[in-house]
């Protein structure tokens, strides 16, 4: 009997361990080894920290990273602002009959691949696109304007892409909020603002933080949306990693950038957890 239990443990834990080592740990180790090697003047490979040094010495690289990080934080915040009222409406306001229906309605666009959704936005927003067509037809514009290829559209696209990942944790934490707390607050003369800030948000904080982590990481690591919708202006950090690997054939530099992205984004999340006084263990539950 005893040996049977141990066999069960082995069987269930082996796939997890194999997954972690083969698909996550080993590639990371390989990346790390690659990132600390570089060519010297003679074209020979050897140990060097030049790849990491270059990131801090060349303003274009750390500026691109800073830009990417700041935009990702902004996207995370905007996503929260938009999805919070939606989540509240679905869980608290609307009659329970429609809750499932509304959730499915929000989920539905995400059954389509991200690429298709981004192209959808491009069809809407481009100069010869749907929105411009109607604006001109109704006489609101004389000639079409280009709405694509700027930071605002890129942020729109990113917020849209990541909304679901904020909404799902918010829905689940709001489910667990007792309605009577809100009613009691109203009875005691609380304003909408004070109810939101002192009851709803503190209760939802673990959900908000876990949603924010997912949205932040997905946005930071996004390649498609910044590239297609940002067009000529936005250089995203992931694009720079791609360029190092593909265009410059410099895998060592690309690995170093990949590693820096991992370290710096983890640092930002750690900072975020400290500021909101949340613990990772509690947030991911």
């Amino acid at each position: 009997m005893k040996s049977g239990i141990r066999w069960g443990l082995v069987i269930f834990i082996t796939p997890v361990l194999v997954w972690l080592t083969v698909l996550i740990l080993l590639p990371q180790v390989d990346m790390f080894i690659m990132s600390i090697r570089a060519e010297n003047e003679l074209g020979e490979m050897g140990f060097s920290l030049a790849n990491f040094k270059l990131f801090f010495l060349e303003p274009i690289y750390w500026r691109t990273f800073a830009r990417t990080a700041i935009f990702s934080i902004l996207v995370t915040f905007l996503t929260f602002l938009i999805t919070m009222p939606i989540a509240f409406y679905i869980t608290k306001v609307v009659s329970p009959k429609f809750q499932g229906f509304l959730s499915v309605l929000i989920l539905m666009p995400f059954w389509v691949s991200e690429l298709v959704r981004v192209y959808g936005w491009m069809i809407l927003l481009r100069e010869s696109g749907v929105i411009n067509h109607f604006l001109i037809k109704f006489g609101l514009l004389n000639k079409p304007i280009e709405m694509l290829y700027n930071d605002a559209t890129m942020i729109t696209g990113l917020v849209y892409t990541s909304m679901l990942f904020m909404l799902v944790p918010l829905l689940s934490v709001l489910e667990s909020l007792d309605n009577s707390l809100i009613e009691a607050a109203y009875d005691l003369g609380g304003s909408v603002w004070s109810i939101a800030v002192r009851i709803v948000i503190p209760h939802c904080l673990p959900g908000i933080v876990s949603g924010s982590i997912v949205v932040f990481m997905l946005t930071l690591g996004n390649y498609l949306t910044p590239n297609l919708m940002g067009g000529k202006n936005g250089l995203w950090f992931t694009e720079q990693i791609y360029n190092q690997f593909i265009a410059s054939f410099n895998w060592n530099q690309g690995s170093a950038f990949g590693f820096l992205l991992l370290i710096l984004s983890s640092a930002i999340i750690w900072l975020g957890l400290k500021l909101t006084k949340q613990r990772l263990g509690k947030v991911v539950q």
Partner: protein
Amino acid sequence: MLKKSIILLMAMIAGFCFMSASASSETLEILTWKGYAPKVLVDKFKTETGIDVKVTFTNNEEMIAKLRATRGAGFDLAQPSQDRISSVQEKYKIYQPIDLSKIKADQIITSMLNAVKKNTMVDGKPHAVPFCWGTSGLVINKKLAPAASDYTDLLNAAYEGRVSYRLKRPTLIAMAFAMGDDPFAKYSDVKAYKALMDKVGQELMDKKNLVKNYWSNGDALLQSMRSKEVYVAMAWDNGGWKLHEENPDIDFVAPKSGALGWIDTFAIPAKAKNSDAAYKWINFILRPENAAVFTNLEKYGTASKGAIKMTDASVRGNFERSFSDADIDNIKWYPPVPAKLESIEGMILDKVKASK
């Protein structure tokens, strides 16, 4: 009970491995550009030889990266441009020498075959044979931008917001030619080349407000030109000719400072599993009647001897319309790219993209 289920599981896994090994028929994996393996020819090849062709579309840079990642495994045939082979081969050894005895050389235009052999020579052995060729130049909507005639018009304030080009090395090279310099002559002098590219990059940054977007997908560019969002673009000749069929206002124009000529090749990856099929495919597609099918579809000329006589009159018409004899003499053919230049260009392209 548990032991039995483990044994069953292992038996199932073993069964799957066996099945997948025996079920595969002969296949040929080609790593190539979009349009280079038309479906008609793939089907014809299958009926002739019984070999299934699997095609993966990519571009020069990704082709090299993919083969480098597997050290030349996973594909039986690749189609890089001839100038991107020798330095890559010296460094990463991703191709195997081409066995010319298996190639029907009498099907191939001799001058092109010799040029490609010479340019892809590593350790005294050639690594590629030519397939098709074309040029990069300007695709212009002549009604909306009648005066555009050179790469400098991509930076002309008269076409603000109506210009599009790729953020890739051909654009840098074209601009350098248009500024009166010769980047190919500076290939061997890394310092001089970097100074020239810095100058070109600065120019692209200064005039960045004029460009509509940096295109990366050929179909997306054609769509922008079709909908009159873009008047002047730097693109491949066949794109311009395809648009000319739909809208006679749009056409490919060989720029004053010279169209950039490229030759795409056949090269066999180092660890190709089925190189015999690859040679069969090369000889098949360079047969004049098959090469003509490709040219009619894609508008690119091939290295196949005699194929041009079998192509549609409109395809030949394209060429005569866009290239005078002087334009042909002025085509700048890419010499092999030495190592190190790519990282210089990569840095400049990043800077251009990041600038405001």
